């Protein structure tokens, strides 16, 4: 076998072996991945889990080419001359490289990119979402449940939300930019003064900050000296517990106003929906 063919076959063999080893690691990574606690967050995780096995063969190929070249094609002591003259272009290889990378790229724009976005945005269609206004200010979050005429005004209130019901977070800020983020729910949106951003999240696991520190509201956009501490505890409870909690907090029982955007109308600020269309249209 000619030298160049031998090198190619060895490289391809190594590529297959190491790619398979890499792919075998993917389930391990996924199993050890931090728990996700919201339906929409799963879409985000799925995007990562989809891309991970996709990039592994690419990473393996490049690293192998680097290591193979540096070890097999290095000048041995005494080899001072140039390498044998070789071709300086390879149209088939180059066009193949271009087209494959283009195809992969365009593919990932659609899946998980656009498809994932559509899935996330689909939550805007959820029936009877629980509206929670998350109002950021330096350096605390205030939460309002306008459907229940309830405002949590503690210094560090606990955000309580029911399991399985889509929560429509209406996020805004009173002063500077902040970002509303529950790490175990994955998705975040910035809180921008004078504007409202809407984020739909559907908790699908009973969890709380005590159980999992990733289930916390964390400000994710630098907002001054209190930025790191700008977080509140979160508790996901069953529907019954939620009703009980509402009563305990002094909200009139089952007082669902049925008017989702009432909060925003009162605030009279333009709002843009992260999950799709303009609010109020």
């Amino acid at each position, binding site marked *: 076998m000619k030298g160049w063919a031998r*090198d190619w076959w060895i490289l391809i063999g190594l590529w297959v072996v190491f790619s398979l080893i890499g792919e075998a690691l993917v389930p391990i990574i996924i199993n050890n*991945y*931090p728990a996700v606690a919201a339906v929409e967050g799963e*879409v*985000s995780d*799925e*995007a990562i889990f989809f*891309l991970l096995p996709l990039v592994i063969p690419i*990473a393996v190929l*490049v*690293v192998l080419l*680097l290591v193979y*070249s*540096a070890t097999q*094609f*290095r*000048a041995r002591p005494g080899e001072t*001359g*140039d*390498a044998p*003259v070789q071709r*300086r*272009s*390879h149209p088939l*290889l*180059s066009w193949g*490289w271009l087209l494959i*990378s283009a195809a992969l*790229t365009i593919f*990932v*724009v659609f899946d998980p*990119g656009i498809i*994932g*976005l559509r*899935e*996330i945005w689909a939550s805007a269609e959820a029936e009877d979402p629980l509206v929670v206004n998350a109002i950021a200010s330096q350096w605390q979050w205030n939460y309002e449940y306008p459907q229940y005429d309830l405002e949590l005004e503690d210094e560090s209130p606990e955000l309580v939300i029911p399991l399985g019901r889509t929560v429509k977070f209406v996020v805004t800020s009173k*002063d*500077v*930019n902040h970002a509303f*983020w529950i790490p*175990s729910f994955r*998705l975040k*949106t*910035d809180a*921008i*003064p*004078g504007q409202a951003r809407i984020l739909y999240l559907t908790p699908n696991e009973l969890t709380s900050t005590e159980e999992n520190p990733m289930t*916390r509201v*964390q400000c*994710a956009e*630098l*907002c*001054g*000296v209190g*930025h*790191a*501490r700008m977080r509140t505890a979160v508790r996901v409870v069953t529907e019954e517990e939620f009703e009980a909690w509402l009563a305990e907090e002094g909200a009139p029982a089952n007082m669902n106003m049925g008017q989702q955007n009432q909060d925003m109308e009162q605030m009279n600020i333009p709002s*843009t929906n*992260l*999950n799709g269309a303009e609010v109020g249209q």
Partner: protein
Amino acid sequence: MTTKPQSPPAQGYSFFGTIAPMLRALIWGVTGLFLGTGLIALFQRGPLFTEISVTVGFVFAMLGWVLGGGAWEHWVRPWFGYPSTWDEGTGTARYWRYNTDHKVIGIQYLVTAGVSFGFAGLAAMLMRIELLTPMLDFFRSAQDYNTAVGVHGSLMIFAVAVVAIVGGFGNYFVPLVVGAEDMPFPYVNGISWWFVIPGVLAIALSPLMGGLQAGWTAYAPLTAQAPSGQILYYLGIFSLGLSSLLTAVNVVGTILYMRAPGMTFGKMPMFAWGMLVTSVLNLLWLPVVTVAMIMGLTDRLIPTSFFGADGLPLVWQDLFWLFGHPEVYIIILPAWAIWLEIAPVMSRKSLFGYGWAVAGYLGVMLLSSFVWVHHMFTASASERIIPFMTTTELISIPTGLFYLVILGTIWRGRMRLNTPMLFVLFSVFNFLFGGLTGVFVSDAPANFMLQDTYFVVGHFHYTIVGGMVFAWFAGLHYWFPKFTGRMYNEFWGKVSAWLMVIGFNMLFFPMYISGILGMNRRVAEYLPYLSDLNLWTSIWGFIFGISFFIPLINFVVSWLNGPKAPANPWGAKTLEWQTSSPPPQHNFEKEPVLTWDIYEYGEGSPSPESLLATTTKGAK
């Protein structure tokens, strides 16, 4: 083509005599500062240092500094018809004064970038000390931590990443690689470096006025309530932007109009291509951010209402990233150019796929102007996400072409695994992970999770430190004999390369994990469940930081005392090696004529030594 080396320092060398012009510049600068602040204080009948007085003082200081460095005699006097009385100096004195030699300016840029790198790196070390434990226990307050974050980021990006290769190597080597005797506007070029120092000083001294509270991106309206140090950010980056803009004019001019006879666009060195597209991007987008800096400044001073609570805070983000994303490619395109410059020389094999590399440059140049909104996916209205997610993913296509070219070049070569080549390989390796994680970050559903976490911090450090800084060090070693006429120590070079790549990956790879686990950016305190990862990161951070002392010592010792290097130690065929080391004042003894293929290597190809004869023949 052989020339005598630069003459040694003149008799009666004195340190103060050498640095006298810079001392005068400093005195004029400080005088200007107090003149400006004093005038405003008198006018306002107020305290000496207010935001408005410091702004005026800064402008006066900048003028005083530039004029005091020699621009007065060398530039302003000739405007009025008087002859220049300026002596550009010889030996080391050249570096301490206004000098129009692009090689001197290149060294000035490189040293400045190195010093800024050290200072900003020190800020990073302080941050890592703070992050050793979950609680705030090192800095007095979160405000001090935020200042460290802001100084680190602002200096690293604006005074190192966009300056080291573009300003340093760009000034030194663009005329050399295209066979020109200098740049088209040497006087402008001489000025350009002098704008770097006020910029660096403004940012570095911002803690005196309360520091930077809003990070290197300075999002409004947080900046409106930040202490007065914020104006030093605007002024400093304005000054640094001005410097880069002047350099870009010169680089584009040199490459378009001053190439040696025979050097068509299709025969231009990779480094020239990289610098050309980089400088075009600078010319297009630097004005945007420079004007945004002025708008941010006037928001505080006058005040105008561009980005404040009564303005449009998101417009600041748009303007900032409108420059800020092309800027990421302004950082990495020259790094790729260095890969492709060094790889064929050290592999002793012709560059593979020249045309594909050019296509990659042009593709990145075009696309990079249309991706900026991906920094704002979580801040933007949803309609903007899909188009910008698409352009962002698409940019990996031209980026991939650079991998095609470098891997095709080293494949079946005869690689000399010396320090420059090691750094190139490590840069390719590191950037791979920066690039591939970029695919995750640019995917909007994943971005909603990863944005503003340590995953993003890891991602851009892999591209900028792993990609650009490693390529910078590859270039520093590769061209060290050209700068100095001496050879660096190969053993310590290799040791530093290995130590840096290990430290780098140990330091930054865990950031991907801590980001996924919910570690958000720019925090002095974090929850205890993240402490193990942060402890690990900090310790490797210190090791990575210390490892930079090895190349520093290597360079200093070798410059003073290294073995003499021949003019062309690597047997390279690009033009910068076809002249003495360091090159004479006008670079080439005779105007070079390019009659050979600069990337043709391999058995039987013309030896580098024979090229000189060809040049001389062509010059007749």
